[in-house]
Each structure stands twice: as C-alpha cells, then as structure tokens.
C-alpha cells in the first residue's frame, strides 16, 4: 500500500449540497477550507428539490404570516418531537437566509409586486384559521436546483477550494477530538488524508436503504455510517419520512407543490379521500398523515384498479371544481400548470407517457427523508451522548444531521431551510472554533484501518455480489420497516439484516483496478446502508408508540408519558447496539392531539 498524501486545512467540509456549500461560503471568508465531494457539487441531491423553501415573508397580498406560526406548524408537524428552541432558530433565521439567497442572485419566481413568489405547502398554516398559508418560496418546481446552482456559483466567485470526486471513507478521531478525514480520489484510487482542526459532514441522506425511493443512487448515508463506526450515536433513526406522492413503482418524487397548487388525491371511486382523514386542510395535511391515508385506502381495496397506487389529479378541470367547492375564487388553466410545474410535467411525460394536463398521475408513498441522523446542537456541533458532550471539532449539517428541528416528521420545504440556516451557523461556528483550536498531530497510521478494509473488498474472492445483497436489504426494509410497523416485522428485519451483514463479509467485486473503481465504492456504500438499516430497525423496535413517521400497528397511539424523548443509538466496539434517551425540549407549545 502506498502512503496517503496528506493535506492540511483549518476545516474540511464533506459534501457539496446545500448544507456543505452554505457552510463553505461562510467559513471560507475567514479560514482555510477544503470542500470534498464524491460528486461534482452541482450533481448533489439538493438539486432535485422541487417545491420550495419556507420563510414567513408574508409576500402574498392580503395574507399575514409570522415566524412563530411557522414554528408552531413545524412543531405540530414533528408530532411534538422537535426541540422547540432549535425550531425557533430555524424559523426565525429562515427569513434572512432566504433574503441572503436572493441577494446571492437566486432567481425566485416573483409575485406581480416584484417580491419573491410563495406557494402553499403541506402543514403550513395560518395559525388562527388553520387554513393553508403561502409560505414556500420557489423557483418553478426546481427550487433546489436554483439553490444549489446559486451557492456553487458564489463559491466559484469566492474561490472556494474544491476536491471534486473525492470520497470520504473515514474520520480521524482521537479521544473526544477530530483530526481530519481519509478520502479516496476516485480518478486514481489513491488515498488522501485531510488533516484539519474541524470537520463538517454534510453528506445527505440514505433513502437507498429502501426499494422505492425518491433518493439518488448516491444517497448511501456515508457520513452517518462513518460517524457510527467512530463511536458517534445516531439520533431518532426510527423516523424516516415516506413522501406520499412518488411515481408508482419508480419512486421519483412528485412535489407536494402539486397539491399546493390545487392538486387532489383520488381513490378508485374518484373520491377525495383526504376529506375524511384531514377535514380542515385535506390534501395538504402532513406527509405522514397523507402517506398512511394512502396505505389505508389501498388496504381497503380502494387503490386504482385494485393496484397499490392512487391518483394525483392536477388537471385544471379537477382543481377548479374543488376550488369552487371549497369557496375559493382562484381558477387555474393549462398554461399556469406548465409554468409552475414544468419539471413535474416533464417527468410524467417522460417516464409514464402521461400528460398531467389530460390524465391523473399514479402515485404511491416513496422513501424520502431522514429525520434522524448525527446528533448536533444549533451550531452544528456533534454530540456524543444525551448529556451534550461534544466531539470537539466535529460538525454536521443538512439531512445527515439531527438538530432536531424535524422531530418525528418533517414539514415540506423545511429541509431546504435547515440546509441554509444550519449550514450557515455551522460554517460560522467552525470559524470561531478554528481561531482558538490548534492543529493537533495526526495519529500514526491514521488511514491504515480503512485502507486495509478497502483492500480486502477489492481483492476478496467469494461468491457474493453487492447488487444481490443490496436488493435483499431494500426489499426487507420496504416490507418490514416501512409506513406501518409491528414488533414482528421489525424483528424479522433485524434477522434479515444480521444475516446480510454476515454475507457482506463475503462481498466480491469484478473490478480489481484502482481507476474510477465504482464497483469497489458501491460495495463500500452498501456497507454504510446496511449499518444504517440496522440502526433504524433497532431504534424502531424499541419505540413502542406511534408518532409522526413511525407508525406501529401494535402501538397505534402516541405515548407522551413515556416517549417524549429522542433516541440515541450507539454501536459498541463488539458490535452491539446501545439505546439511550434524551428528553425533548418543549417551549411555547405543549403537546396536544394532532388534527389537520
């Protein structure tokens, strides 16, 4: 094995999605920063975010809004599991974060008065009337694309150092301090050590644990799995969001913005079934509520043609019919849908051959978003336990982190807010940290362990193909750790996953080379997914209640007396999982029954 090349920086940011780039922009003004990404930055999954980013700007003529309403909606959406001090930070700072993005040039859609255009989104309400409010700032249905492009453009302007197509595979931790990371350069297969005072993980989610997902192939939870392996607990992993409207079988996301613009969910009878599940805001209820409703409709035989899907109808005729029924004066036409939802129209035309102006779209829930992840405080500092002990120099932000502002169920548009608000806070805090901290020496052989693990996979000769294991894992997770869970299903999942972990030891790849060995990296990523799948199943089995995205058929009620707390799941040196719990921070909003 050749010796890894060593680079020195004040801070290393891993991940170039919205969270990583926002942190990079703020940190690189003051300290020496490297941004490392396994994808070219503009390929990051933030670019696929469609519907919008919420902030209580109250730009809609004749409407009022306030960040406190946004906070209440977020807390209610979270099924009271979010930490309310963190939610206050999120919603208050959302406002100037969105303005900051506009000042960076982000081309938001505009209202006739020239202000940023806002649309309705699930769970965002006027707190006095309970009716939907226009809070989601957007650029057509490619808001994430515009955020990612704008942040990357500003990074070019500010000459941020990028290491594109470098994949981080280990964290260098000594005691309660980090000293850098180990990365593989994809083009050459060479290992590099980035020696630094601070490290930020902004590596995104792990939807690829499931079979039907809105997530990119690259969303394999690397950052979270690396932390887990280096003794960082994972918080609230049982809470994974299933978005109600994925394209049937494909999982490609159809933004909630479709329902925000008036789209309606219909069952086999052509019934607007959400009227029964959420009488006040109907189709715009929280995602967990809508996903469960779809499952229940399918279970009682009301899927379209008896299949596992329902219809999402955004044909102007349908939308206007329900506008009229609901006493709304607004009407829409084909041109409006084409202008507001061009990408959605393109997806359904391309992948389904369906024109959403003429036909309803077949949809089913799709694995979408990790509410849980690496525990942090509001400055992105990573926590090692329920007491708040920090891992010095270590930060996490974006989907990989759990602050927790999303609790048991994230509201639509709040991830993009999370990226920019906590990406920015982490970037700023790292600057402070690096000013005072000194660069501690690298331990000897800092990369040896992971290099050996890679060499083992690369040279092993067995019979187990990564693809086969991945499929088994995804099927097991979809069947057993999905929208509805029971002890039996979760135990079943644990058994299968333990077996797959065994089989993983025999994983064998075809590509024995160094250059762009994506065969090897995919195999390593599968290991990350397996670890996170296990943590998810363990955490879910222990939580004997139903809350937000975690619905237990055997424990159908929320249980505040016992479960108003965050799960911390740690993997011990001998491979066991240890659970501990941390009380939720309650603020202005006392838990009450959640009705929409």
């Amino acid at each position, binding site marked *: 094995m050749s010796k890894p090349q060593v680079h020195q920086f004040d801070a290393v940011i891993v991940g170039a999605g919205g969270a990583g780039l926002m942190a990079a922009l703020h940190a690189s003004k003051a300290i020496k920063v490297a941004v490392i990404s396994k994808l070219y930055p503009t390929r990051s999954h933030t670019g696929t975010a469609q519907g919008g980013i919420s902030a209580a700007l109250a730009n809609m003529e004749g409407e009022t809004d306030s960040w406190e309403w946004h906070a209440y909606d977020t807390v209610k959406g979270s099924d009271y599991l979010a930490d309310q001090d963190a939610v206050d930070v999120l919603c208050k700072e959302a406002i100037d974060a969105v303005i900051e993005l506009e000042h960076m040039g982000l081309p938001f859609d*505009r209202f006739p008065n020239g202000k940023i255009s806002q649309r309705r989104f699930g769970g965002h309400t006027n707190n006095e009337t309970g009716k939907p409010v226009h809070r989601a700032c957007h650029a057509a249905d490619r808001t994430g694309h515009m955020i990612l492009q704008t942040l990357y453009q500003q990074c070019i*302007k500010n000459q941020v150092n990028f290491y594109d197509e470098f994949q981080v595979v280990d964290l260098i931790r000594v005691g309660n301090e980090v000293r850098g990371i180990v990365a593989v350069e994809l083009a050459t297969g060479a290992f590099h050590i980035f020696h630094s005072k601070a490290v930020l993980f902004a590596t995104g989610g792990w939807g690829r644990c499931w079979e039907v997902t809105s997530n990119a192939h690259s969303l394999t939870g690397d950052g979270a799995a690396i932390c887990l392996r280096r003794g960082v607990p994972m918080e609230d992993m049982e809470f994974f969001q299933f978005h109600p409207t994925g394209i049937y079988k494909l999982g490609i996301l159809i933004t909630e913005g479709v329902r925000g613009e008036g789209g309606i969910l219909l069952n086999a009878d052509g019934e607007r079934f959400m009227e029964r599940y959420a009488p006040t805001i109907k189709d715009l209820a929280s995602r967990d509520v809508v996903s469960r409703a779809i499952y229940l409709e399918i279970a009682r035989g009301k899927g379209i043609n008896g299949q596992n899907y329902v219809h999402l109808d955004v044909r102007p005729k349908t939308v206007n019919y329900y506008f009229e029924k609901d006493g709304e004066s607004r009407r829409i036409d084909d041109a409006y849908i084409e202008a507001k939802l061009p990408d959605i129209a*393109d997806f359904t035309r391309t992948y389904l051959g369906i024109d959403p102006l003429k036909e309803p779209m077949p949809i089913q829930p799709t694995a979408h978003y990790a509410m849980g992840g690496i525990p942090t405080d509001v400055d992105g500092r990573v926590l090692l336990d329920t007491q708040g002990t920090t891992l010095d120099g270590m930060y996490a932000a974006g989907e990989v982190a759990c602050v927790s502002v999303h609790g048991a169920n994230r509201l639509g548009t709040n991830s993009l807010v999370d990226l920019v608000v906590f990406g920015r806070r982490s970037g700023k805090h790292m600057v402070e940290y690096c000013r005072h901290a000194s660069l501690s020496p690298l331990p000897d052989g800092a990369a040896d362990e992971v290099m050996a693990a890679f060499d083992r996979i690369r040279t092993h000769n067995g019979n187990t193909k990564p693809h086969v294991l991945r499929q088994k894992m995804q099927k097991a997770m979809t069947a057993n750790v999905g929208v509805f869970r029971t002890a039996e299903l979760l135990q079943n999942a644990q058994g299968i996953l333990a077996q797959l972990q065994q089989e993983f030891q025999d994983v064998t790849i075809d590509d024995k*080379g160094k250059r*762009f060995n994506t065969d090897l990296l995919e195999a390593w990523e599968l290991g990350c997914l397996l670890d996170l799948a296990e943590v998810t199943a363990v955490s879910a089995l222990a939580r004997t209640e139903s809350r937000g995205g975690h619905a237990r058929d055997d424990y159908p009620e929320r249980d505040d007396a016992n479960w108003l707390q965050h799960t911390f799941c740690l993997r011990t040196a001998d491979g066991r999982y240890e659970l501990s719990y941390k009380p939720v921070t309650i603020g202005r909003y006392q838990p009450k029954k959640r009705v929409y």
Partner: protein
Amino acid sequence: MQVLLRIRRYNPELRDKPWWGEYSLDNVAPHDTVLELLHRVKWTMDGSLSLRRSCAHGVCGSDAMRINGANALACKMLVSRLAKPGQQSLKIQVEPILGLPVLKDLIVDMEPFMEHYRSVLPYFINDSPAPANGRERLQSPEDRAIFDDTTKCILCAACTTSCPSFWANDKYVGPAAIVQAHRFIFDSRDEGAAQRLEVVGDTFGVWKCRTVFNCTNACPREIEITRAIGEVKHALTTKS
C-alpha cells in the same frame, strides 16, 4: 424485448486502446431507461463498467453520453424511444460524449468543460447596496421570465459535446458556457453584463457558433440554446 448493448469501453489499466463490449440483455421493457440497462450490465455481468450517475431522473446532469450517435442523458432515454413500435430485438450503442478526454469507459474529464464554464463569470454580480429595508431586490415577473429558460441548465455537457465547432476547436467556450452567461446577462438585477459580454464576444466566444442546432436538440432540459446564443449575439451587436 431483447437488447444488444454495445458499449465503448476503455480502461488504460487493462488495455492501451478502447474496445467495444457487447452485452445481450433479455426481458427489457420499453419503459426501461438506458441507465437501467447499464446498471444491469454493471451489477450482473461486468462490475468494472464505469459511468457517472446519481439522481436517475434527469436533473443532476451526471450521465450525458452518446446513445445511438446522439447525446442524451442515459437516465432519461427510454428504450421505447430507440425502438420502432412492435420491435422485438434492438441494438443500442453507447459511447462517451465527444470532445473531452476519456478517463475510463463512459467517464470523461470534465475539467476543460468546467474551465469554460468558469470563464464567463457564472455568478451574480451586484455591488450596489441591497434594499435598506433588509428585504429582497424586486424584479417583475416579466423581467424574471426573460432568462427563465437558461436557469434550467444542469451542466451535463450534452450540448457542448455535440457541437461541431467545439469538436473542431476546444478553445471555443461552447454552448453551455454561453447559456450560463445568458442567465446573468439578462437578469435585470445583475451588473456584470459588460464583463461577461467581453468574454463571450471574444474570438472563441459566440461567433464560433454556426447555428447548427445540435446543442438545442441535445439539451435534456429543452433549453432553446441556439436562441439564447442568438440573444447574446444580438446584445453584443447592439452594445457596440
């Protein structure tokens, strides 16, 4: 249906020269994408096949390649679009995009492309103070609409690597970079148009465009690229 997938392979660790790999796939459905077929080869036949991909639904820009001689995103190209109705067996040929150095199989060196991109100052420039009320700069929906089309670019390089002028001379900034310049030149809030017009008005800028329309046809985001280039040319002539 039955598909014979011919893939242009290259791996200097194994052989000096590129070669054609041929893979026979059964039970291909018309709605399968070329990316799915490539994954089938990679996951079940030859794991060493290398390509870039991420989102799998045409928005991240990773997997532009030459499919049956024309640039497209593999994840957005359905088999049905390559077959005639009722056809039972089909040959599909996949090669890396042209004009950028091939590193391995379908992976090309994107750096020359990114260098052209960076040369047009692809970022918002406005040094005037922001509104005193701490809020957004205003822009009318009409002004916003002028550059809407060019905000859609995902930097996949399908356009630039389908352009004969770029093949002939790789110093040409290429359509993608001009699209990016257009996005800012026509943004009513931006103040950097003069600098950008200087770059794209250079000998290796827009005047290398011979309006062949390959770029417009290749764009998976359906950006009217040739038109955008025309608008930049027009801005240059009206400026001087």
